[in-house]
């Protein structure tokens, strides 16, 4: 853990972090990159701050929208065979 992160964790633990710092924590939480204690710090802050509750809900919804609504390209039918053929040809 770097010094910056250590200081930030102290701020979260003591409730001294500001909303902008909690936004960083929101990203860690929605991306499953946070520790249980960080999630606890965020939950504690969310009880007191509607602005951050809104931010968390928006980030969650945006992530869900990207996952569920992004248009996926169909893989060309011949691609897998073409790769396998090229690999077979390159094998001595």
């Amino acid at each position, binding site marked *: 853990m770097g010094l910056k992160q250590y200081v930030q964790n102290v701020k979260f633990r003591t409730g001294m972090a500001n909303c902008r710092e909690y936004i*960083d924590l929101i990203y860690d939480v929605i991306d499953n990159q946070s520790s249980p204690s960080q999630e606890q710090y965020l939950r504690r802050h969310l009880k007191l701050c509607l602005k951050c509750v809104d931010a968390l809900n928006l980030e969650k919804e*945006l992530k869900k929208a990207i996952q569920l609504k992004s248009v996926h*390209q169909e893989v060309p039918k011949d*691609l897998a065979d073409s790769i396998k053929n090229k690999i077979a040809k390159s094998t001595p």
Partner: protein
Amino acid sequence: MEEAIEKNNYTDQEKQQLVDMEFMPHLRALYNFAYKLTYDEDDSKDLVQDTYMKAYRFINSFQKGTNAKAWLFRILKNSFINEFRKKSKQPAQVDYQEVEGYYNSEGTEKPSSTTDLRVDSVKNMMGDEITSALNSLDVDFRTVIILCDLEGFTYDEMAKILDIPIGTVRSRIHRARNLLKEKLAGYAASMGY
């Protein structure tokens, strides 16, 4: 971010098994990643084929049981940067690592994520709007959102794929999401959400 690579000596049969069981299942994810980088079907096919050929050529560097998907994504990203980006007549890119360094420096006010985007408007958006907004982002920002939100890589895996420090991954994701929200807020306003 150099790591000591332990070489294996797989038999032809083991190599074939690795290709079939570990590499081929990621074809769809790789093709979609390639398409979101190039926006061209032929280039995407070439890039994916090139990725698999390189993976096969260097297969002895791959440790069985490790993250094949992350390994293949890293190869594809490097191929894109080294070959496809050179070929394309793109305007000069901004060096985002420099920008990120600036935003991460102490005492620098980060740009505020001022958007009036609401949860309801995101819920009402169509896939095309989300896709267009994502596609309109610069390739470096688009890439982190694809890797994180669509492919579910951890920050640590993304740092290895992109060859950047984890702090840079974090700040790039934050910046990318703020840019995406700005784009979507524009759509939402124009649609009267």
